[in-house]
C-alpha cells in the first residue's frame, strides 16, 4: 500500500484526529464531576483563608471533605446582591453553594458593561463577611477574596489567585504571605478618589486604604488594583447600606443604654 498518496494521507489524518477527539471527549466527560468537586473545594478554601480562619496549607492538609464541612458549620449565610445592594438570591448553605471562578468572570463582564449583576457575599458566624473580586492581571485573569470584620470598616484578610502571572513577580499576589498580610487592618474609603489603592513605590504610612505594590510586577499590581476597585464599586451600595445599618444599630444600643442610665439617675434623685 502506498502510504504517501494524497488519499491515504487525508483519510489517515482524519481518522486519527476523530479518534483522538473521541477519546478526549469521553475522558473529559468522565472526569468532569471530580474536577469540579476539586475546584469547588479549592474556591471554598480560598474563601476560608481570606476570612482568616487558617492558612491555605491547612485546608489542603485536612482535605476537601473536611474543608467543606468546616465551611458549612461556620457559614452564617451566603447570598448574592445586585447593584442596588439588595439581596437577590440565597446560596444553599447545606450544599455549600458558591459562585465558581467562571461565574465570577461572567459577573465581571456584567459589571464592566454596566449591566445587571449578581455578586456573592459570604457571611460567617463570627461576623466576618467575605466578598470576591475578579479582573485582568498581566497574562491572564486574577481573582480573590477580601474579608471584612463585623463593622465592615476593617479589612480582616485577603487571598488572591491567578491563572498565569509570572512566578516570583506577579505570582506574589498569591505566593507571598507578606503581600496579603498588608491588607489586614486596612479599610475601604468610598469618599477617596479610589476606594482602595495599591501604590507603586510604597503607600503613605498614614493612609488607611492603601498598600504597597509588588516590585517588578507593575502590571499585575495595577490589574489587581483595578479588579478590587471595580468590584468594590459594584458592592458600594450594599456595603454602605450595611455600614449604615450597623451604625444605626450601635446608635440605638447606645441610646438605650443612655435612657437606662438616665432612668436610674431619676430613680436615685427621687429617693
Amino acid at each position, binding site marked *: 500500500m502506498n502510504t504517501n498518496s494524497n488519499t491515504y*494521507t487525508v483519510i*489517515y489524518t482524519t481518522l486519527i484526529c476523530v479518534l*483522538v477527539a473521541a477519546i478526549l471527549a469521553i475522558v473529559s466527560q468522565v*472526569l468532569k464531576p471530580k474536577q469540579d468537586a476539586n475546584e469547588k473545594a479549592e474556591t471554598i478554601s480560598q474563601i476560608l483563608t481570606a476570612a482568616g480562619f487558617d492558612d491555605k496549607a491547612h485546608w489542603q492538609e485536612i482535605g*476537601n471533605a473536611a474543608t467543606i464541612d468546616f465551611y458549612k458549620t461556620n457559614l452564617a449565610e451566603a447570598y448574592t446582591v445586585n447593584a442596588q445592594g439588595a439581596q437577590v438570591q440565597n446560596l444553599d448553605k447545606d450544599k455549600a453553594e458558591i459562585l465558581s471562578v467562571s461565574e465570577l468572570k461572567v459577573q465581571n463582564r456584567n459589571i464592566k458593561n454596566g449591566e445587571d449583576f449578581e455578586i456573592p457575599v459570604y457571611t460567617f458566624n463570627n461576623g466576618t463577611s467575605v466578598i470576591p473580586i475578579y479582573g485582568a492581571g498581566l497574562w491572564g485573569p486574577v481573582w480573590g477574596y477580601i474579608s471584612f470584620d463585623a463593622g465592615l470598616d476593617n479589612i480582616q484578610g485577603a487571598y488572591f489567585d491567578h491563572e498565569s502571572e509570572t*512566578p516570583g513577580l506577579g505570582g506574589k499576589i498569591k505566593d507571598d504571605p507578606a503581600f496579603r498580610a498588608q491588607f489586614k487592618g486596612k479599610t475601604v474609603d468610598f469618599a477617596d478618589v479610589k476606594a482602595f489603592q495599591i501604590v507603586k513605590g510604597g503607600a503613605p504610612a498614614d493612609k488607611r486604604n492603601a498598600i504597597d505594590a509588588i516590585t517588578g510586577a507593575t502590571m499585575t499590581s495595577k490589574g489587581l488594583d483595578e479588579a478590587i476597585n471595580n468590584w468594590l464599586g459594584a458592592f458600594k451600595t450594599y456595603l454602605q447600606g450595611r455600614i449604615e445599618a450597623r451604625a444605626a444599630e450601635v446608635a440605638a444600643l447606645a441610646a438605650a443604654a443612655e435612657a437606662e442610665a438616665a432612668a436610674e439617675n431619676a430613680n436615685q434623685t427621687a429617693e
Partner: protein
Amino acid sequence: MNQKMKETILNPILKGNPITVLVLGICSSLAVTVEMKGALVMALSVTLVTGLSSLICSLLRKTIPNRVRIIIQLVVVALMVILVDQLLKSFEGTYPIDKQLSVYIGLIITNCIVMGRIEAFALGNKPIPSLLDGLANGVGYGLILVIVAFFRELLGSGTLFGIPVLAKLGYVNNGLMILPPMALILIGCIIWVQRSIQKDLQEK
C-alpha cells in the same frame, strides 16, 4: 536482557542525558524545580508521556504517511499530555500540584525531548525498545529535575517536600535560589561535574 537493550535504557540517563548532554527541555527544568514535589510530579508526567507516545508512534510507524508524520506525532503527544493533565486535575492529592505546575504540564507537548525521541528512535524501532527508550529519557530528564529541585528547595526555602530541614539550624533562606536564573546555574554545575567525570563528552 541483551547489551543493546541495556544501552537503550542507560544511555539517556547517563551519557546521553536529555538535559545535560542534549540540552533539551531546559525551559521547564528552570520553571518547575522550585520544590521537590512539583519536580517529582513533572518528572513522572514527562516519563509517562515520552514512554507512551514513543510506544504508540512506534506501533503506528509503518502506517504513518511520511509527509504528515510530524503532525501525527504531535497529535499523539498532545493526546497523552492532555490525558495526564486531566488525570492530575481529578485527584484530590494531585490537584494542588497540577494548579502549581499550571501551564508547564500543558507545555510538555512542546518539550523537545518527547518529539525528539519519537523522530529519532521510535519511528525506526520496534515498540518495546521504543517504550523503554521513551521511559529512560523521561527518567534522565526527571533525575536532573529532582537534583536541581533538591538544592533549590533546600537552600531557597530551607525545606524538603515542604518539611522544614534547615530552619532549625538557623539557616537564612537564599532568595536567589527560588528565582529561575539559579536553576540555570545549577544545571551548569551539573553539566560541569558530569563532563569532568565522563571525559569523552569533552570537545577536543
